[in-house]
Structure formats: C-alpha cells, structure tokens
C-alpha cells in the first residue's frame, strides 16, 4: 500500500501533511487547555476562598479509585505511544494490538469511574438539598468534582471512540499504517491523560495527611 492513499488535498506530500496535522492537533490542544483551564480557575478561586470546606469535602473522594484510574491512563498512554512508533515502522500487528490495549485501558477507566460514581451517589454526594456535608461550600467542591470528572469522562469516551474507528480503519486497510492521522489521535489521547494527571491531586489528594 502506498503512501499516496494517505495523502489528502491540499498537501503537496505526506511529510508536509504530517506536520500540518501536528500543528492542527496542537492548536486544538491549546484550545482544550483553556477549556479545562476555566474549570481549574473556578476550582482554584473557590478553594482559595474556602480552604476548610474543600478539605472537608475532598476527604470524601475515593482515593483508591482515583489512583487506579491514574495508573490505567498512564499505561494507556504508553501503549498509545508504542502504537504510534510501531505504525511508523510499518509494524501492523503491534500497532493494532497496542491500539486495542489503549482502548481496553480507557474502557477500564470508565468502568472504575462508573463504580466510583455509583458509590458517590450512594453516599449522597451529589449537591442538592439533602447534601450530607457541612458547610454549604462543600457542595462547591462536589459540583466541581462532578463537572471536572464528567467533562473528562466525555473526552475519554470520545477518545475511545476515535481510537476505535481509527483501529478499524487500519485493520480494514482503508488507510495505510503511515497515515498522519494517527499523530492526531495519539496527541488527543495523551492530552486526556494529562487532564487526569492534574485532576488527581486536585480531587483526591487534598489534605490527606
């Protein structure tokens, strides 16, 4: 299969196209940084205002689930990198296996997250009139918990979908292994991992000592 199959309008050659895709995806990442950044800003403002309430509230998060999920995502990122490297060396099997592994680990993350959510809901930790914690500002922490993890989970689910579609395309040889698109997919995946790395200390490690 020739590289020509991966070349798209309006690019003169595949190398240039690869650079273009990289520029494009990193611009998107810069945009995403500000998307999540707005959440981080809100979190930081409220934590600065109500350190005590945040300490009380954050003690209720489940650090085990959070940590397991961090390890799952870190591993998935490693698998994704191996997939990219392998694809560029035309190692079809390794590429597909690693993409599969990435999706598997990502799905694992979502499963753990689901367990965590159901625990949280069982403990009544969704802000509302019967919220178990006091003072009321603890609800701010939990509001941010739900929005942050929710938005992250949506990103991750999207990532799994995109990786899945892409793996399918490679499997059915609709695109050659060397397609620049894989760079975009991988960079996005790593970014979603990045967000969790930042969320982890903010949500799970507050004043554990």
């Amino acid at each position, binding site marked *: 299969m020739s590289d020509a199959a991966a070349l*798209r*309008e*309006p690019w003169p050659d595949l190398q*240039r196209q690869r*650079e*273009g895709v990289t*520029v*494009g995806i990193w*611009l*998107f990442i*810069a*945009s*995403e940084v*500000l*998307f*999540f*950044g*707005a*959440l981080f*800003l*809100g979190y930081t*403002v*409220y934590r600065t*205002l*109500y350190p005590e*309430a945040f300490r009380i509230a954050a003690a209720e998060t489940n650090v085990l689930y959070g940590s397991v999920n961090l390890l799952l995502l870190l591993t998935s990122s490693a698998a994704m990198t191996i997939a990219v490297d392998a694809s560029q060396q035309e190692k079809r099997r390794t590429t597909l296996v690693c993409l599969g592994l990435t999706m598997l680990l990502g799905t694992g993350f979502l499963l753990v997250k689901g367990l965590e959510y159901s625990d949280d809901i069982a403990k009544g930790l969704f*802000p*509302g009139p019967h919220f178990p914690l006091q*003072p*009321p*500002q603890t*609800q*701010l922490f*939990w*509001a*941010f918990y*739900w*929005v942050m993890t929710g*938005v992250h989970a949506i990103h991750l689910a999207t990532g799994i979908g995109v990786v899945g579609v892409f793996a399918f395309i490679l499997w059915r040889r609709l695109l050659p292994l060397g397609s620049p698109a894989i760079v975009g997919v991988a960079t996005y995946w790593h970014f979603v991992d990045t967000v969790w790395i930042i969320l982890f200390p903010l949500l799970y490690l507050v004043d554990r000592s």
Partner: protein
Amino acid sequence: MTDAVIGDVAAETPPPSYLGAGHTLLSWLTTTDHKRIAILYAISITFFFFIGGIAIALVRLELMTPQGLFLTSDAYNRLFSLHGIIMVWFFLVPSIPATMGNFLLPLMIGANDVAFPRLNLLSWYLYVLGAAFTIYTLISGGVDTGWTFYAPFSTNYATGYVIAAAAGVFVVGFSSIATGVNFIATAHMLRAPGMTWFRLPLFVWAMYTVSLVMVLATPVLAMSLLLVVVERGFGLPIFDATRGGDPILFQHLFWFYSHPAVYIMILPAMGVVSEVIPCFARRTIFGYTFMVYALIAIAVISFMVWGHHMFVAGQSPLANLVFSFLSFIVAVPSAIKVFNWTATLHRGQITFEAPMLYALGFVGLFTIGGLTGLFLASVPIDIHATDSYFVIAHFHFVMVGGTVSAYMAGLHFWWPKITGRMYSEAWARFAAITTFLGFNATFMPQFVMGWNGMPRRYHHYPDIFQAWHVMSSVGALILAVAYVLPLVYFGWSLLYGRRAPANPWNATGLEWQTSSPPPKENFHRIPRIHAGPYRYHASDRLPMADDRTPVRPQGETP
C-alpha cells in the same frame, strides 16, 4: 442561487469555475472546497443577520413611546436577548472570517485550499447545528437572559429556554474554534513558495491573528456556558451565592471570552479595510510592518482587558485599576491603525467606488467607537456610563459602524471575484452613503441619552428620553433600508450583472491573478511570490507573483 450564473460560464473554458464544479444541492452540502463553504456560510449568516435585524427592528419600534406600543416586558426582553445572541454569535463572529476569510485566505497565500478541508465543512455543519438550537429557542418562546447569560439570573431565575440557547452558542463556538485551527494551520503550512510572513497581505495577517483569538478564547466561553447549564439543569452550585458561589466568577469567565470576541469581530474588519483602502487610493499601505505588529499586539493584549466590563460588578478596586490601565494600552495599536489608513490616502490617486466609501466610513466610525472606548476604560466615567445606552452606542459604533461596514466593503470589493459578476455601482454607492447616515442617526442619539442616564435593556423609560429614542428609531429605519438594498442589487447582479474581469479594480493581491470566479483548484499552478503586497505605485508596479496568466482568458464581454 448561483446556478443561473454557472450555466453558461461553465461551457466557456476547460477548467470550470468552482461554481460550475457540480450543480446539485448535494454537491454543495458535501463540498470541501473552501470557496463553496464560504458561500454556504454567507447564505447562513445573511439569514441570521436579517432575523437579528427583525428582532431589533421590533425593539426600536416598541421604544418609540416610553410605555411601549405592543410588546409585553417579557417579549421585549426576549427580543433584545435574541438580537444579541444572534448578531454576536451567528453573524458578527463568523461574518468576515467564515465567508471572506474562507474564500480568500488560500487564494491570497497561493494555496489550493485550507489545511483541513473536511474540518472546514464540519465547522459549517457545527454552525448549522448551533443555529438549529437557536431556531428551536426562538420558536419555542425565546430566552430572556440577554446575550450575556449572567448568573444567577440565567441559572435560577430566567424563564426562557436558557439551556437550548446556551447549547446553540456552545456548539457554534466549536465551529469558530475549527475555523481558527484551520486558518492558523493554513497560514503556517500552505503559503506558496516565496510568500514570506512579511509579504502576506494584511487581510491574511488579520485572519491569522483573529484565529489565534478564536482558538484561545472560545473554549472559555464554552466552559462558562456549560457551567450555567449544569447549574440550571442539574442544580450543581457553581455560581450560587447561598452555597458560597460567586456570581462574579461567571463574569470573569464570560468576559475572558467576550472581550476578545469584540476583537474577533474587529480584527477581520481591519484586514478588509487594509486591502480596500490601498487599492482605491492606488498607494501602498502606510507602515505595513507597524500594521502587522499592531494586529498582533491587539490580539494578545485583548485578552488582558476583560475586567473593564466589571468596574461596577463588585470587583476589587485594584483589579479595576489594572484592567483600566491595560484597556488604555490596547487602544494604542488601534489608534496606530487609524493613523496608518489615513496616511495611506496621502499622495494617492483616490477614487470612490462603493467599497472605498464603506471603508472610509469604517475609519470614521471606528475612530469614534474607539475613542468612546477610552471613556469606558476610565473608571469614574465608566461607573456612570456602563449599563447605559452610552455603552450600547459605543459597541455598535465598533461592531456595526466598524465590522458591518467593513463586511459590506469586503463584500462589494470581492463580489466580482466570488460571483464573476459586477454589481450596480450607483446603487451600491447610494447604499454606502445611506448606511453611514442611517448609522449615525441611529447611534449618535444613544450616546447622548446614555450619558444622560438612560439605562440599557429598558422596556419602559422616563419620558424625557423619548425624543432621543424616536430619533434613534428613525435612524434605524434608514439603516434597515440601507441593509436591504444590497440584497436587491446583489440579487439582480447574480442574474443580470455584467461579467466581471479577473481584476476589475486593477488590484495587486494574488486573488486577483486568477480568474473570476476562480477555478476549483484556485491556480492552475502554484504561484511563485517575489514581492510584497500593495505595490500600487507607478514606479514599482509589479505583480506579486510571476504567474500572471489567469486560468481562463480575460475575454470579458458582457
């Protein structure tokens, strides 16, 4: 709308124009050609321009008397909210970038298309999806939050369809991010050989800098609206004061986008005017490099001034001073641009075709809009003037007197290139002058009543303001006529207009060196660039590129 044109053009020469590369509706809806996507955008935003226009026409009519004529207060609130939301996000933000930017950016840098043509199409579909939410909001009863969606009104008290409206804006935001990513990648990766950064036309620079703002500001808007939606929809306290939330935080997030958004609207306008004025003054742009640096400076500093919308909101006095200072700084590059446009006229060979009239109108109105911005950047003046008609007049001078004038200038300037037809010059000049007069009649009175204490978003108002309101409404009527006119003569031009030559204005830009309308692939071979833009002087009159032969012969017989 263009099929009638295509019919006979296509038969003429072997490489058909982009308009002739498929005649079915499907060929338009699945196109990845940046020029066709530009047309799709142009049709959509024109539609919304008139929807938003009708909304405000009703508002202006209602304001003819202090007690109103025919609307309830709720209906009135919904109409001005709708006007704001539609005009800002469905017209002004995409106006120049998504239409002229899409059409011209690849042509001006000598590329076949934008970097990601399918993403470009996706961005239009996102726009359509956002538009669908907005239309849904509109027909199900509207939204009453104003375009600013301030919490806690939007989260807990508004009676309209806040979630649907916010969803529309959220989605359309991603359309503008997609456009921004596309343009930046295009400008970096697809410039023709020899097209160095300082040979780029200022319009391209404007597109580049505006894309930067879109990519980095829009996500914050998306998040702030998302937070409003989760608070309203799921009861999560984000801005809820009873649980410790701070409503001012919403304003910080919202204005972090919405102040740069003003520059999303005005930077492209500056780009258009920087193309039009040199062409009709037959003079190179004065201070090209300063113009470029001014664009970059505006794009960056525009992110640091948002707090001047919040001087009375409950922000700390220190923050007020910081934001006031930065707001004065951001005015400097804008002033530089005004001086440069004016100086470009010096020693020119000026003619006054319609695009030039609009562009000169732009310079005048933008100057007033910019200077009144200084009033609002000064804390004590702003405390009295903010949330009054003074602010309304100020930002309409920038956004309507500025951006819409420039949009019209660009539309007339590139109309022959886009459609391959000439429009009626006499009617166009008449419309340009009417716009200028109608605009001033509408908004000058608003400065006066604003400073005299007339608050904005008021359905009923004290009797002493009636004379000013009536003046403003009459001005709006003139303005409405001036905006409907082009619809008529452009429509006529599509059907019966004289065929346009490749370069009707004798302009120097690369886009004028291909045929009108351009072929699907823009250039039949990628041009090689050996000179900068705006070489209008007799002594150095050289084309920018060596590839002067248009794809089709210039045999333009009407």
